């Protein structure tokens, strides 16, 4: 009797099984803990690579589908599968989580518990991307939020209690808003089904009344928008980034934030197309607030993690703008930017974490001249900063370029402001680099150690991903673009 488990289920369940296994490891066997965590995140990475590599671009649509009927009376099924968008995001997630596990080797405090929560978080996020059933989507969504609370509260730094409280409250509030929206959609559709694929088709034939869609859409938009994070609901996010331990920041800024825009795209826009038509021009304006406001606030930050945190919320504005365009180029650009930005932030937070663990300060001005002392980590941070500033050769440039092209003829003023955003990014990124890494070495840091050969692995994986996609964007765009016609068909 074999286990009826396809690759996608294996991908989602592997970290969860890992977490359960870890519970059985005796206290103090930190080495075992690390190896188990590594193995159970390496498996999803391999599966994700396999899925991306073998994704049938001609066929398109949802692939590797698995369905187990669970509560038939309510129409709840366990259903997972990947389309061109989610497969790319799953790849992003497994890259960030695997490298996050490697980066976490430095964690010394309560190693076992740390990894248990970390693996649960990973499983939850993977579940969100893979789920094709609204019930399980929501379940995994909550499952991803909860482990953040202890991870930041226990292993975090500085204002960790305040940060974790705020983060959890914000995300829960958002989730509740979204839940209201989802419930209305479920009840109003009359389809008696949580099955996303079925609902999509059903609602395309029997669309909800436009008036209702316009009313319900904001629940989903702002509910999921909290995690996106959409201005002005963003303030939990930089604080959360800053207080979390490095690997959690990597996953948080790298992947968790993408859940918001992914859910807006996958659920709100797809199930409520008329609502999207009504609200998306407003999103294009909010996106500009994200981009410019986030950029300027980032300039004013003294703490390097806050700079990157506000930078993230600024760059998520580009994703929102891409979604708001509701055309193929915009959607492709938005999804590609989710990938690119995720990898880039993970890289930046890994480097910051490496330094913070030794300096115990994150105030940019207190670093100074680190490039001479720790050339490898510094170089990698500088590359991440360059990627963020939209330097060609990195995936961020391609995706932002796509979004510019997409929005230029749809929202001219937003496009103008978004293009100006690349100037602001360059300003704060280069200033950060200049202050932290250039100039004479602060004598306090003469003992700082660069990454060992083993520690270099996660950086190199992330950098490779960023550059391969940046140089040859078709590698991912050809996959992402198989999913966009389906979504746009709803929006017509």
């Amino acid at each position, binding site marked *: 009797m074999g286990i009826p488990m396809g690759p996608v289920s294996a991908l989602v369940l592997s970290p969860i099984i890992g977490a359960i296994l870890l519970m059985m490891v005796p206290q103090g066997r930190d080495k075992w803990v690390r190896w188990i965590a590594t193995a159970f995140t390496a498996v999803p990475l391999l599966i994700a690579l396999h899925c991306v590599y073998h994704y049938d671009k001609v066929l398109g649509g949802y692939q590797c589908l698995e369905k187990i009927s669970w509560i038939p009376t309510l129409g709840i099924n366990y259903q997972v599968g990947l389309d061109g968008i989610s497969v790319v995001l799953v790849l992003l997630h497994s890259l960030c989580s695997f490298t996050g596990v490697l980066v976490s080797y430095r964690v010394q405090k309560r190693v076992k518990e740390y990894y248990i929560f970390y693996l649960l978080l990973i499983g939850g996020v993977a579940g969100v991307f893979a789920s094709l059933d609204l019930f399980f989507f929501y379940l995994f969504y909550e499952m991803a939020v909860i482990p953040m609370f202890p991870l930041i509260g226990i292993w975090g730094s500085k204002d960790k209690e305040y940060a974790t409280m*705020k983060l959890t*409250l*914000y995300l829960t509030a958002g989730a509740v808003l979204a839940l209201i929206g989802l419930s209305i959609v479920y009840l109003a559709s009359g389809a008696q089904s949580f099955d996303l694929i079925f609902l999509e088709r059903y609602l395309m034939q029997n669309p909800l009344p436009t008036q209702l869609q316009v009313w319900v859409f904001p629940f989903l938009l702002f509910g999921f928008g909290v995690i996106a994070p959409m201005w*002005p609901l963003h*303030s*939990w996010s930089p604080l959360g980034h800053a207080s979390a331990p490095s690997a959690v920041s990597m996953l948080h800024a790298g992947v968790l934030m993408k859940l918001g825009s992914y859910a807006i795209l996958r659920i709100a826009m797809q199930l409520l197309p008329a609502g999207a038509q009504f609200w998306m021009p407003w999103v294009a304006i909010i996106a500009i607030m994200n981009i410019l*406001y986030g950029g*300027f*606030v980032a*300039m*004013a*930050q003294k703490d390097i993690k806050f700079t990157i945190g506000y930078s993230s919320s600024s760059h998520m504005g580009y994703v929102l703008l891409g979604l708001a365009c509701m*055309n*193929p*180029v915009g959607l*492709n650009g938005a999804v590609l930017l989710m990938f690119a930005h995720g990898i880039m932030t993970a890289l930046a937070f890994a480097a910051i974490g490496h330094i913070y663990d030794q300096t115990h300060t994150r105030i940019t001005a207190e670093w100074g*001249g680190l*490039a*001479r002392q720790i050339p490898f980590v510094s170089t990698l941070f500088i590359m991440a900063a*360059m990627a963020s*500033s*939209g*330097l*060609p*050769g990195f995936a961020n*440039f*391609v995706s932002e*370029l*796509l979004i*510019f*092209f*997409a929005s*230029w*003829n749809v929202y001219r003023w937003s*496009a*103008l402001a978004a*293009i*100006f955003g*690349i*100037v602001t990014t*360059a*300003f704060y990124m*280069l*200033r950060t*680099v*200049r202050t932290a*890494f*250039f*100039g*004479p*070495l602060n004598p306090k840091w003469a003992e700082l150690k660069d990454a060992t050969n083993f520690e270099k692995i996660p950086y190199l994986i992330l950098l490779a991903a960023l550059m391969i996609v940046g140089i040859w*964007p*078709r590698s991912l*765009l050809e996959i992402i*673009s198989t999913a966009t016609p389906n979504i746009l068909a709803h929006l017509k």
Partner: protein
Amino acid sequence: MVALPWILLFAPLLACVAIVLGARKSKPASTALAIGGLVVSFVCALQALMHAGGEHPQIIQSSLNWINLPGLLLEFGLLLDKPAILMSLVVTGVGLMVFIYSTGYMKEDRSYTRYFACLSLFAFSMLGIVLSNNFVSLFIFWELVGASSYLLIGYWYEKPSAAAAGKKAFLVNRIADFGFLLGILTLWNISGLGGHEKTLNFVELAHRIPEFVHGGLISSATLSVAAALVFCGVLGKSAQFPLHVWLPDAMEGPTPVSALIHAATMVAAGVYLIARTYFLFWEAPQALIMVAWIGGFTALFAASMALVENDIKRILAFSTLSQLGYMVMALGLGGYTAGIYHLTTHAFFKALLFLGAGSAIHAVHSNDIWKMGGLLKKMPITGWTFLLATLALCGIFPLSGFWSKDEILAVAFHQNKILYLVGTLTAGLTAFYMGRLFSIAFLGESRVHHHEESHGHHGGIHESPWAMTIPLMLLTIPTIFGGFMGFPEFLHHTTHGGIHVEFNMTVAIISSIVAIGGLALAFMIYSKGMQPSAAAQKKLTWLATPLTRKYWIDEIYRYLNQNVQQQGAVFLGLFEKYVIMGLFANGMAKITGVTGLVLRRIQTGRVQSYAFMVWIGFAAIFLWVFRWVQ
């Protein structure tokens, strides 16, 4: 043949990657890789030149689909036509000299291999600009040039001034690129007029734009907006007023880098961009006029600042600004050939000047011309080659600069008399500041203190090593003979538009007199000691202050940066802290808390009050039902 431009472009990149991956520890290996890569490119460029002659020159275009989405097809492609061949020869030729020179100049540097990796990256990026066949590819390399210049200008990043200069160069260019990108998007829309599929390919656009204009599909005013936006990019890379501020500061980089940036690459990119997209500018007369005036203004403006500068590299930097202004002005006046011609000759003699300056700095260990003196005797190769380049820059017959500068002035004379005067005046100023530089630094007595000289490095000032002097000597060849190599003929009919003006004897004679006059005046003052009277000098100080302060432009920008941009950021930072977080988020939390406090009062724990509540509730329901029944 199709592979040719690809090899030409990617050889330096491969060298860079190989150095980073394999030769980070080995100086000889990294040298060999970097120089080898560029030699390959140079040979490819020569190969292309062989095939470019004749009546029907072969134009190689090769591209692949880089992004292929519904509604957006972006190609990554290369175009090897005559202007591209000429520019790649200049880039690789001058680049090669700089690379070889650097092996001597940077010998003792601790990050030698990083230096060569960055140089190779820089050469790759610049060749990319030269060879790109469409706006998006060009923009990619445009940004890469910005990034690699950031790495090279800030090469000695431990020096705060170098780190700041690198950052400044990148940011000023980024501001310019904001406009450039808008221009690209505007053109992308324009290309789709009349039901065509949108494109950004140069060859395709060169066909369409004149067609659109003549067919009345687009007004020249609209086109001028697009051209002006594209010109924004030129303002940044070619350091035209008001975005010239990064260039003097860029002298913080190692001197060979300055030679590369200021002669053959980066700053040349802007001028090349105008030439590359001349079909656009030619059909946009309003933009063209603006280009001419900005160029002319920059030429004069920068030359005036060079008059009072004491840092040898900064004098040359202002001179570069000024000469770039010349080229831009030429292109703006319709002198397509003249502009590129001057770009080519200038690349050689300006590289020679910078490398010569580097050789002098290497010997004296100072950038200050007043600390040099008498170098012609002590360093004959550096001195004499520097003199040749100086004369070429001043436009002395029959050196290369004479011919190209004269062609520009002839065009100006034909097109716009005011700009002709500006150009001639600039020529005079150029001769004067170069004469001043040469008289102070290379003639007269050495001003290096004797004890410094004897106890100094390797016992006194002496000629630089062969690795540095051989490139100097090689560069004198095009400096002298550049006027006879047939550059203008090579460029004829390579673009849409442009005017051709015959050699004008009057213009040539006037400019020669002005140049010789300027040189002679400087020689008299700074070498023969014919100082003006004290009273006159006092008056001159009044004039010199704005020049030494560079017309306070840096101060204005710094003020804007600190008081507008940074204050705005601080304000929004406070807004975030007190309004979004304080009022909005924490306020919400407060309300929740207070509500909790109030509602808690209801939970008294006394049965009587609960019973009371029950009765009230019951009465309310009763009343409501009763009303409903009625």
